[in-house]
Every structure is written in C-alpha cells, then in structure tokens.
C-alpha cells in the first residue's frame, strides 16, 4: 500500500456539482433559442450583430490579459446579451466596439469576473447609445427573407450606415411615446413587432428563463418582483389616466422581459439576499415605469437596471438575515 499518492485537502471534501464555468456556459447556452428567434424575426443580420458583439467582448477579455476568464463563459454571456439589445441594422464595427467596451470598461477595469458593479452588457449598450444615438434608435422592418440584411451592417468603420437602403419601422414603445398608439399584447408576447434583437419575443425569453430557474442558475424572485411592480404600478397609472399604456403593454414591450430575466438576474451585479432581490426588482420596476412614461426616451430598462446595480452593495448590507441565535424573537437580551 503506497501512501505517497494520497492528497490532503481542507474540508469539506465534497463539492456540489455546479461550478462557475458550468453556470456561465449554461446561461450562455440557454440564450440559443432567443438568438434563433432573433434570426427568425430579423434574418442573418441578427446573427452578424451578435457575433460582432461577442467577438468584441472576447477580444477585450483576451486583450486585457485574462486568459482564464476567456473560457469561463462569462464573456460570451456579455457579448450575446449586448447583441440582443441592439437593432439588427447596426453596423458591425459599432457592435464590435460595443462588445469591447462592455468587457473592457464594464468588467476588466473593475478587476474582472465578479468584481464589476454594473451589468457589463448594459454598460456597453449605454456607451453605444451615447456614441451612436441615431443607428442605435433606427429600427429595421422585418426583412422579406432571412438571408436579406436588415440594414447596412457592413458599413465601413467610422462611416455611418447608409439609411437610404433600409426600410425602417417604429417600435411599439416609440409608437406609444411619440404617436400615442398602443400595440396589442399578443404580438408583443409572440415577438412579431420590431425592436432590438432580443426584445421582441417575450414567450421565448420566459421559457429560457424558466429553464435556468429550474437549474438553480437564476433566482426567480428578481424577475417576479420586477414584473409584479411594473404590473401594479402601470395598472394604477392606467386607472388614473387611461391614455397611458396598461400593464400588459408595459410588461411585454421593449426590453423589459429580456432585462428582467437575463440582466437584472446577473449574479455579479444583483443582490445576494432574497429580500434584497425583491427590493432590487421593485426598484427596477418603479424606475422602468417612471422613465418610460415621463422620461425623454421611450426605453427605460437599461437605465433602471444600471441605477439599481449601483445600490446593490447597500441593499446587501441592509437585508442581511438575522444570524441564528442573535436577537431571538421573544427573548430578552
């Protein structure tokens, strides 16, 4: 019997199967149906834009010298998520820069995986909104075949897209904000309206999220809290002023479902306590309704989540549960 090959490790000696790369790759993989839906609704441009943001994200990850995080799956999540928030017609060089900014300014600069305060994909999107406001808010109509480009994706770098070649359409939120016409809930739920790549089909996103929740990689409390808050608040607002959109429209339009399911639940940038997740979700919900109805922009989910991201450390601190054996109810100190 040889003892030389025995190892010595600290307890516990068993480990639950879920590992960080498994979680990250599962989340990344779970978005495949959403990407497929984007391809179905917007054609080949959808895949090109998502590929560009993902390559941009991974290039930044590698460029900042983080070899190991290149394979942990987190960079892919950021890249694909960012892609899903963009219009199909966005020139690819812009998408690439957005991906690189997401990881570079959104994650690496804070110290890499686990250290960032703000959701990297949304930070990247915020950058693109500031840098390229017109292409970021020009929405293509659905192409006639999936192989037809939705816009001038191959515009040369530093050149703006040729908008003349593009058929544009207004998003449901844009219609509501600027023309006061409300799209019905069913097309919103199924995704047959225009918008960014991943904000169209609520149904597909909810199914993917349910799978992640079942695997234990997504805490259902955050989206539940966001949906409940938006529904309650918009019902109230709609009751006071029927000219404003009702809860179904508010829930299934824009990026709310994608944001609530995939971005507000980002483990790194959302609270670690369950009470905190309810509060975080309520905060996002309130901000979404307020910004959509009274803000200058039709879309609000990005700013709502980014603002609440900043509050996470505070939320964590004030929502810690009562430690066992301390402050026992009914027991005098």
């Amino acid at each position: 019997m040889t003892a030389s090959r025995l190892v010595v490790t600290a307890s516990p000696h068993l480990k639950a199967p879920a590992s960080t790369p498994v979680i990250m790759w599962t989340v990344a993989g779970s978005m495949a149906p959403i990407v497929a839906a984007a391809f179905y609704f917007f054609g080949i441009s959808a895949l090109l834009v998502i590929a560009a943001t993902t390559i941009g994200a991974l290039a930044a990850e590698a460029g900042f010298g983080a070899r190991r995080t290149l394979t942990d799956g987190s960079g892919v999540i950021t890249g694909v998520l960012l892609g899903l928030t963009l219009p199909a017609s966005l020139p690819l060089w812009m998408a690439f820069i957005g991906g690189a900014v997401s990881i570079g300014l959104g994650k690496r600069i804070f110290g890499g995986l686990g250290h960032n305060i703000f959701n990297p994909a949304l930070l990247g999107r915020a950058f693109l909104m500031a840098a390229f406001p017109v292409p970021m808010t020009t929405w293509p109509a659905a192409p006639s075949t999936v192989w037809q480009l939705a816009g001038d994706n191959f515009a040369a770098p530093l050149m703006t897209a040729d908008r003349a070649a593009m058929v544009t359409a207004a998003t449901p939120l844009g219609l509501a904000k600027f023309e006061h016409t409300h799209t019905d809930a069913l097309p919103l739920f199924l995704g047959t309206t225009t918008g960014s790549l991943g904000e169209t089909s609520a149904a597909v996103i909810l199914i993917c999220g349910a799978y992640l929740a079942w695997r234990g990689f997504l805490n259902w409390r955050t989206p539940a809290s966001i949906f409940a808050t938006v529904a309650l608040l918009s019902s109230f607002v709609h009751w006071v002023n029927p000219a404003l959109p009702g809860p179904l429209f508010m829930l299934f339009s824009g990026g709310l479902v994608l944001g609530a399911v995939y971005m507000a639940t980002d483990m790194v940038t959302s609270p670690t306590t369950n009470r905190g997740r309810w509060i975080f979700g309520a905060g996002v919900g309130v901000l979404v309704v307020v910004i959509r109805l009274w803000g200058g922009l039709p879309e609000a989910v990005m700013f709502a989540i980014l603002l609440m991201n900043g509050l996470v450390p505070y939320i964590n601190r004030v929502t810690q549960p009562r430690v066992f054996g301390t402050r026992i109810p009914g027991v005098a100190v």
Partner: protein
Amino acid sequence: MSTVLRALGFLHGVHPPEHKELTARVPIRRMAYPAEVVLPVRQHAGKPAKVVVTRGDQVERGDTLAVADGFISSPVHASASGRVTAIEQWPHPDGTTALAIRIAVDPHSAQVARPRMVPDWRHLTPQQIVQAVQDAGVVGLGGAAFPTHVKLAPPKDAKPELVLINGAECEPYLTTDHRSMVEFPERVHLGIRVMLQALGVSRAVIGIEKNKPDAIDAVRAAVPADLDVTVLPLTVKYPQGAEKMLIRSVLGREVPSGKLPISVGVVVQNVGSAAMIGEVFDTGLPLVERIVTVTGHGLVKPANLIVPVGTKLRDLLEYCGGLTGDAAEILFGGPMMGLPVSNLDTPVLKGTTGVVVLTRSEVRAQVSYPCIHCGYCLEACPVFLDPQYLGSLAMAGRYEEMPPHHLADCMLCGSCSYVCPSNIPLSQLFQSSKVAVRRLKAGAA
C-alpha cells in the same frame, strides 16, 4: 404515526450525496486485534490525560494508561492486553503529533478484561454516575469528543428539561450510529436511563434522519415502557446533526449565540455516546473500543467494525481489503467535516466516527474562480451568516472586521464551501480566521 409522515428540520443547509448505501446494511463485525495499538493521551476536548504507566509495563485490556487531568479531561485505557513498548510523540489525526502510549498486543491473550465491578446505576447518586462515566473515559463519540460526564453535570443555575439524543448522522458515507441503533437499541436506552437519572430529568427525545427507517423502527420498538422517550424522524439535510440545528429542528428553540444547549434546557448527547454509557453500566468495561464505519469508493471492502481504540489506519485498511487503484484521499470522519490523513500510522481515536477513502474523481479540484455573488452560500449557511462577505474579509486579511459579522457563530460545517460554484475554500478561510482573531485578541490583551 408512521416514521416518515412527520419529519422535522431547520432552515437552510445542503444536500450532499449520501453514499451510505455502501455500509448501511452491513452488520457490525469485530475486527481482529492488530499487532500494535497506539493510544494518544489527547483524544478528547479539554486537558490531555496524564500517563501512569511506564515502558515495559504489562497491561490488560481495560487497564488505565493515563488518568484525567482535572474535571474537563478524560482517562485513557488499554484497548488490548500487551506490553507498553514506548511512550512517545505519534502522528495524530489532526495533522500534528501527540504523546501516545504504544502497546505491543499479546498475540496469545484472549483479550478478556480483568474481572471488575459493574456499577449498579439504580443505587448511584448523580455525582457518582458522573464520576463513573468519567472514570470509564467516555467522550462524545459523534466526532467532537467532548468529555461526556461534563455535560451530565450542568452548572447549579441550569435547569435541564430534556435529554436530546443525536441520531441524525448527517455526514455522508457514515453509518456508525445507524448500525448501532439497528443492532444495539437496548444499549442506547440503558444509556438514556442512566443519563436521565444523573440529570434528574424525566424526558428524552431521539432525533433520527428519516433516511434510516430501520433505525427509527428498532429504537422505537425498544423504548422501555417506563421511560418517556420519543423517537422523532428528521428531514435529511446537512448539518441536521449539528447540536444547535438539532435543537432547532426538534424543539423550535434557538440556542443563543455563544451559549451552550443547556441555556435552553437541553443536554445533547450523540447516540453512540448513549450506547457507550449503556455498555459501561452493562459490562463495567471502560471505553476501549468503538464502532467505526470504514468506507468509501476508494476502499475494496467497506465495513462497519468494532475496533480497539488506537488501531492504526494501516491495519484498518488492510482488514478492509486495502485501497482501490483510484483511491486518492483518506479522511478521519465524514467528508463534510472530516480530517484528511496522509500517515498510515495514524491511530483511530475515541472520537473517530469513520474512515472514508475518496477516489480521485471525488477529491475537490484545487482551482478557484472569483466570487460571482451568486448567493448560494447565504442560502446554505444554517446560521444565516454572509459567507461571501466574510470570505472577502478573510482573503483581504481584514480579520478585525470579522467578529462583528458573527465569525464566532460559524461552526465550520462546510455548507458554504460545498455549494460555492467558484470553489472558494470558505470554511478553511473561516477556520484560519478564527485563529487569527484569537491572536489579535491575545495581542490586544
């Protein structure tokens, strides 16, 4: 009421794979005496015992080798007849060495103890019972090895109401308590009877995880008609067998932070310790052997064995058919809180609940990822700490900030490390942090 209908539990906790099927149905056997036993004087919490034999002495099984040094201490007895060959430093399961008495076992001895008086518990005062339990060297057999008699002599102002017998055995792989309850339920009840008398308490509860229905049935069927003993099935969850969790599960009471179970009127004893007390008052023999589960996928023939205290790991493994080709790590105790042992001369102690041999594929990976704030550890911690925050403080060396975040309430159960997807050794960090905090306090004083 069916054994499975009602099961009691605490909040949070984890569900590691049980792996108890390897030995759950294997009857307890007596291991053949090894050629040598080695008995450290430090086998219990409290002061080490004082050696009273010298090299060359002939000893019989059950003879005292070392006496208790004060009240919170426990004597050590010869676990086999033979000759004292050396009293020297010897490898200890905790990774250090300790003074130990080596006995060359007499191969021709029948290993029968000297005739001795069996104390008649019916006519003993509580003080006499406490003394008899201490003299027999009984310590907690659940792993912590706290001297059992100390818990039977609570402070004057304490009001014990209930004896709570811990039959949870929530550590994966181990079936020591399980088999004891199935095979020796009368011993358990005799032990309970003696403890109730020592404490002046009339009521006892035995908590058993419901994954051991045969143990629940056996112990329940053996409850003497004149004793108020309830057998309660518990949910299968780690760490159900942690003292404070068990009390929470059974009584719904929380032991205040920093206090002992007696502060809520409860005396907790491991079921193996109860059976051992029963044995002491049945045979008169002190604690010289114990039941050990020797198991794991890295072992050829897993077994539940009655083993002389001081049996070396090498002999135990050989008796169980040796290691398999992919055996990688040997543990004393269960895989959640057990100690890794790399020296095959390490002896089985009174508190050794089992020996588990893990295979290469089971051993924890050594690569860690950064904390992704998933919050799994907060959901796992049975005492509701924030392990990820405490872990970040520990990694930054900010030990002075840890006590306000209740580091002292961490019982090192390992649930946080178990669930951590980034494989951060949280439990290990907290163990070293506790040492660091003690050092800071010592430096400040």
